[in-house]
């Protein structure tokens, strides 16, 4: 039995394609793709399906033409409107 718990996602790197993050309902920020590093996030609501939206700043990163050092950061929001920050390896 699976679990319908994925809520939102973002792409942060599109060249080479593709990497980003998936937000689960508990507030977990889950890397996807080869170039998404681990993130540090502010809140995780264990077993509470309250996380709803995920956003990223400086998305569409191009590792081939960019500096390669740019990391993603942004915010996610839960049901009650609190925005929580996350960042990849301390970026932003």
């Amino acid at each position: 039995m699976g679990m319908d718990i994925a809520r939102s996602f973002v792409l942060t790197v599109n060249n080479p394609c593709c990497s980003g993050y998936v937000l689960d309902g508990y507030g977990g920020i889950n890397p996807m793709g080869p170039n998404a590093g681990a993130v540090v996030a502010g809140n995780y609501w264990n077993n509470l399906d309250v996380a709803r939206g995920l956003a990223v700043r400086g998305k569409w990163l191009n590792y081939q033409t960019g500096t390669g050092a740019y990391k993603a950061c942004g915010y996610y929001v839960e049901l009650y409107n609190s925005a929580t920050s996350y960042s990849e390896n301390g970026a932003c």
Partner: protein
Amino acid sequence: MSVISRLKGLTSHLVRRIRQGDVPLSKRLRVLSVSLATAGALSGIGTINVAAAPIPVFMLPWTANPGPSWHDISGNTYGCNSHMGPDYYAIDFGLVNNPVASVGKGVIYSTGYDSVGGYYVEIKHDDGTYAYYGHLSQGSIRVSTNNRVREGDWIATSGQTGSAIGPHLHFRMTSGGPTSTPVKPEPMGATSGPSTSFGHWGYSLSYGCLWSQDPVGGGRGPGYFATAPAVAITSRYYSGDYVLDGYGGITPVNGAPVMSGGPSWPGWNISRDFKVCPTDDSKGYLLDGFGGISPVGNATPIPSQYRAYFGWDIARSIAIGWDCQSGYTLDGYGGIHPFAANGVLPPAPAPGTYAYHQGWDIMRSIVNRDYFNLGAGYVLDGYGGINPFAGAPAISPSPYWGWTSHDPLY
């Protein structure tokens, strides 16, 4: 056209099928099998224990836009005075002619009147619990038996009908039936201040006859109760973010300027997604559940013929192209619908090149593959599957939380 107007036109559109949904079952099966195979290969990444069911969480039982909003608990709290039996955990909120909102998703179990509770609404939530809202104002009930409601939906107005000393909302939750086992209604949504961490009432409610008690604690000061459910967040490129609530409210956070001009549906949790344009922070588009695309800020309106109109709440996500006037909307079944302000539509994915599950509202979000070209991208399903469309390459690894047998088709 407002969502309300579109709702009034429901009779002429209710049975309209989702565009691009008319693909043969055999083709849908083939798409699903590819999706399953892909997703299965990507399993084991997530951190969630799929055996642990989520703990239900609820909104507060009144509607308001995000911001300071508070109401006394006017006396009878847990186990006090008449609050016994199924009402043991009932709460009297000091609401006076306030819109009363459903605390959770569910179905209207009954509405009616009795000499004690006055006009009332009972809701059976999807998790099996029941909620009772009593002493409602005469003529104010906005729902009928078997109606579906979401958390935050405006169901009635508070009043003083039945046996009530002063106007208030009598609210209780039970399990096993509408008058069976009392349920403590916690956690229930509240934040202890703007942009702070999620809390449950601010603290656990005390037992006993405590008058004029405020859920936040510390007396009767204002609390910051987020009674409009948040549904999405989007970022400006350099700084600032916007939180979209279900009523269409767009709240700037982290230094973003106010973005005006959007729609507003107080008490109706019908907004689904909002995205700021990737190349112009001053504009964006808001998607409602019926497929309507509302311009926000100085965005160009989308002509009605280029908007996917479903006639029911099934639109889920929106992706905007670099030109800030075209993009895609996603419906819950996986249908992908191009739109454009100038009539120059991005290419529609060919049937069979994207995941689609007729009758199963399982798709959550859509993003473009590329900044400049709208021809391909990805769709997230509820299980963490990243489903490419129109030839976008697969993404690996990715989180994945299994599949389910709940699909009505398989």
